[in-house]
């Protein structure tokens, strides 16, 4: 893009952004809706970092507790008034002496129910049928979807087999269900014609019990032995498959595996696959350039989803802990700026890849649309993506603007989903998060829509190198 185009994009971004804000504000939940109460609760909790930590720790442990009395007992331990300032309702809830008492068990039961309700706004069903039902509802609201089976790393062959089985079931059911779906121009049109309506995302670490970057050859053999049958069936049924990106230590292995496998003659001419680039990585731009170069050699396009990345706290903590290079930008504005740079490169190359842009940041999303408009790209040449349960008013605003919006919908066992849920809760309560700020504050629009290069606001400080009090 030349200088004039950049300036036009910047101006258009602000204009589109204000429009999104206005629309999103009108769609914000009202106090009779559950989402409103959830936001109030999250705001309340995040106002006190100590309370937030204890509550999130409690939620993290919740699926492993055994029964209502056990939940009540843990709640009382985490919400110890000697350690945290408890708001009145929570103080009342922990008044019981015996977790096995009727009151104790009632509190335990209610806590479980409440947490489950909260989780269901991020997690779209506990089984394939529920998830597909939810996907159909999204389509009726002119939003596309991608389904993901919840689960982090597996540690045994049988777990990995199970993960592959669940994905196979998903591909079969989704492929069959999609046959009856009606084509929707706004979300199903691609650059060169209709896109697959069925779309899934896979985490490779679920497909091998020792997903260890030290042993890439064995991992390649093991993962592909489970992945290839899934890919083959997905291709037969016309299901799009995206390979998700996880923590930094898996990045090289995941990218290498994707590139190597998709170069195999069997898959080389298959365009309905995708990979992820994380803009919070300092070498996020390099990752994309590498993919572009590879796509040219391959000769068939793939989809590329640009995200900021969800493991910032873990990456910085471990890097500082073990004195290694911090792989991510340490300031939020740097990630945002990197994101925008990669947005430009991706859209400039929209004839080689299928660009997808995931974010909940109004500035980032508006910037994508603005750059696309300036480059004269129609909505069918790219898509925007958001997570289920996050920033719903914004989703409605984007869908209403006629763009293709895809919702990332994880489903499955709540236990498997806890790490996912915690990442979402952290995101929703982070001071850097757009979602926390609401859409109604018109005075804040300009600030929120400012170019990250200008803004350079201070982000959360890095974890301390060490706490040493003596020698």
């Amino acid at each position: 893009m030349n200088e004039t185009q950049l300036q036009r994009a910047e101006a258009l971004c602000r204009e589109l952004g204000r429009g999104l804000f206005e629309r999103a504000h009108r769609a914000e939940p009202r106090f009779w809706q559950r989402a409103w109460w959830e936001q109030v609760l999250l705001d309340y909790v995040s106002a006190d970092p100590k309370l937030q930590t204890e509550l999130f720790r409690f939620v993290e442990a919740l699926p492993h507790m055994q029964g209502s009395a056990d939940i009540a007992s843990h709640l009382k331990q985490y919400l110890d008034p000697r350690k945290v300032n408890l708001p009145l309702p929570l103080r009342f809830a922990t008044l019981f002496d015996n977790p096995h008492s009727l009151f104790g068990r009632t509190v335990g039961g209610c806590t479980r129910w409440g947490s489950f309700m909260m989780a269901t706004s991020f997690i779209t069903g506990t089984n394939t049928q529920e998830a597909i039902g939810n996907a159909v509802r999204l389509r009726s609201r002119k939003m596309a979807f991608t389904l993901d089976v919840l689960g982090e790393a597996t540690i045994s062959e049988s777990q990995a087999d199970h993960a592959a089985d669940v994905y196979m079931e998903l591909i079969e059911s989704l492929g069959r269900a999609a046959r009856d779906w009606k084509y929707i121009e706004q979300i199903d049109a691609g650059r060169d014609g209709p896109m697959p309506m069925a779309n899934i995302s896979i985490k490779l670490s679920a497909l091998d019990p020792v997903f260890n970057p030290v042993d890439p050859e064995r991992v390649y053999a093991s993962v592909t032995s489970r992945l290839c049958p899934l890919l083959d069936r997905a291709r037969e049924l016309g299901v799009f498959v995206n390979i998700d990106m996880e923590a930094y230590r898996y990045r090289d292995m995941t990218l290498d595996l994707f590139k190597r496998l998709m170069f195999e003659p069997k898959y080389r001419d298959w365009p309905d696959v995708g990979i992820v680039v994380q803009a919070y990585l300092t070498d996020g731009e390099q990752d994309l350039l590498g993919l572009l170069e590879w796509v040219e050699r391959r000769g068939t396009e793939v989809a590329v989803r640009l995200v900021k990345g969800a493991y910032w706290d873990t990456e910085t903590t471990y890097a500082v802990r073990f004195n290694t290079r911090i792989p991510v930008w340490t300031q939020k504005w740097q990630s945002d700026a990197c994101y925008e740079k990669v947005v430009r490169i991706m859209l400039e190359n929209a004839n080689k890849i299928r660009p997808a842009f995931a974010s909940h940041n109004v500035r980032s999303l508006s910037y994508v649309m603005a750059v696309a408009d300036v480059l004269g790209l129609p909505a069918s040449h790219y898509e925007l993506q958001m997570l289920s349960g996050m920033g719903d008013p914004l989703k409605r605003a984007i869908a209403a603007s006629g763009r293709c919006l895809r919702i990332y919908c994880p489903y499955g066992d709540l236990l498997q989903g806890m790490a996912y849920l915690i990442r979402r809760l952290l995101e929703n309560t982070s001071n850097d998060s757009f979602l926390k700020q609401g859409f109604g504050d018109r005075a804040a629009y300009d600030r929120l829509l400012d170019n990250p290069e200008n803004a350079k606001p201070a982000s959360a400080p890095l974890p301390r190198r060490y706490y040493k009090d003596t020698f």
Partner: protein
Amino acid sequence: MLSFQNAVNTGFGSAANRERMAAAIKECRAQMGRSHMMLIDGEPEESGEWVDSRNPAHPHEVVGRVARGDALYADKAVAAAARALASWSSRSAGERAEVLRRVAALLEEQRFAFAALLVLEVGKNPVQADAEVTEAIDYCNYHAALAEHMENNRRRRNVPGEDNVLVYDPCGVCALISPWDFPLALLAGMLSAAVVSGNCAVIKPASNAPVVATRLVDLFVAADLPAGVANLVFGEGQAVGMHLAEHPGVHLVAFCGSKDHGLDVRQAAARVRPGQRHMKRIIIDAGAKNAIIIDHDVDVDEAVQGVMDSAFGFSGQKCTACSRVIVLGGVYDRFCSRLAQSAETMKIGDPCDPAVIIGPVIDDEAAQHIQACVEEGKKHAEVLFETNVASMPESGSYVRPVVFKDVDPGSDLAQEEIFGPVLSVIRADDFDEALVIANDSMYALTGGLYSRSPANIERCRREFRVGNLYINRRITGSQVDVQPYGGSKLSGDGARLGAVDYLLQYCVPRTISENTIRHGLTAVEEDPVESIA
């Protein structure tokens, strides 16, 4: 504040680093089989007799051969150390620290070469070998920083008319008897602590890992450590190690190894011999039967991974390794089945491969001992997991990893150290019982807890009496300075390697008081120096 930073491990997720490691192993192999003499008073010494050090993964490969020493050489080395003492101990801590910093820099430079040697001599995989090099570097830099800090921050109590100061002198001649499980790091820890405090040392390295010791001592020489300050004598524990422990010219004995040998050394060193005019300092690190408690409210997969790492890294041949896992009734069955399934995924084979978890054990004798323990254990407990024979390499000192379940907490399986890839799962009905079982051991080195209950975590902090307690993480892999390391009960006498406590063991404190008033003439007052040393 202490100026010390931990060194950084190599990331073997990088293909370039894996290739560098493979090249280093190849290079090390090409130079294998050389003869190494002892070092006494800066001069190489041979005895005419040689002992081979073999690669436990390929016993036909001789990693190096070393001169067989005996009591006479030990005597000679003690005399040399005693002669070097006056000049070395008169140097400033800063000068001595510089030697250690040069050693650390050389180790960093030759990181891959040292890791390769560890792979070939003791059968550690490159990831663990590299971490051991890091630890060795850390001990050198840490002890250097600490010694300087102590000298520059002496404890002073200068009251009007009188100056009082506490100074630390070296003990004298130190006998360092080092182990083979961390033949580089622990020797580096002992030797750096000894020499930086102004002592002179006689090293008797483990018979199974003499070449690594030779290479480390070479670095000290290259770093300009004067002749006689570090002497190296090879030989059998009985012939040389015990002789050094008994020697009236030795002032300090540091031993790391098995409990029985440790107790023998301690007893031998305690007795005052004719002509001996001092009590010896004795530092013993010996034996362990480390337990991890698994609470009922944990993510079982996370706990299983932590236990696997702790129990099977370097085939369980670490004093810090987990050999007992105490699981609460509520998750017992789930934990057992996940553990068994997960154990199936362990890669077994040549430790040159960084992904191999189970390599060989140190030698055939160790393999036979472990096998005997397993056979005996099978009479008393149920086997939860055992690798099938077909997946084991044919040559080399390999033993099959085994997990027992429903182990009686009082049985030999749960009480005696095995030092191999053998894990016992014990059931506990409640948390009280789990704690009782965990503490019911003659050892107390490391221990662990996986729990999501703040109350139970707090209780463990108070009541789980081990040298190093790890909560919700693996119990191996302590980091210098971050986690000072050492045990109590029969595991050791409590010296903390990686903390000031350890360095103080190598020192004799002296308090010096001087009356500063001379016939009414008072000295000009200096600013008081704050110190906590």
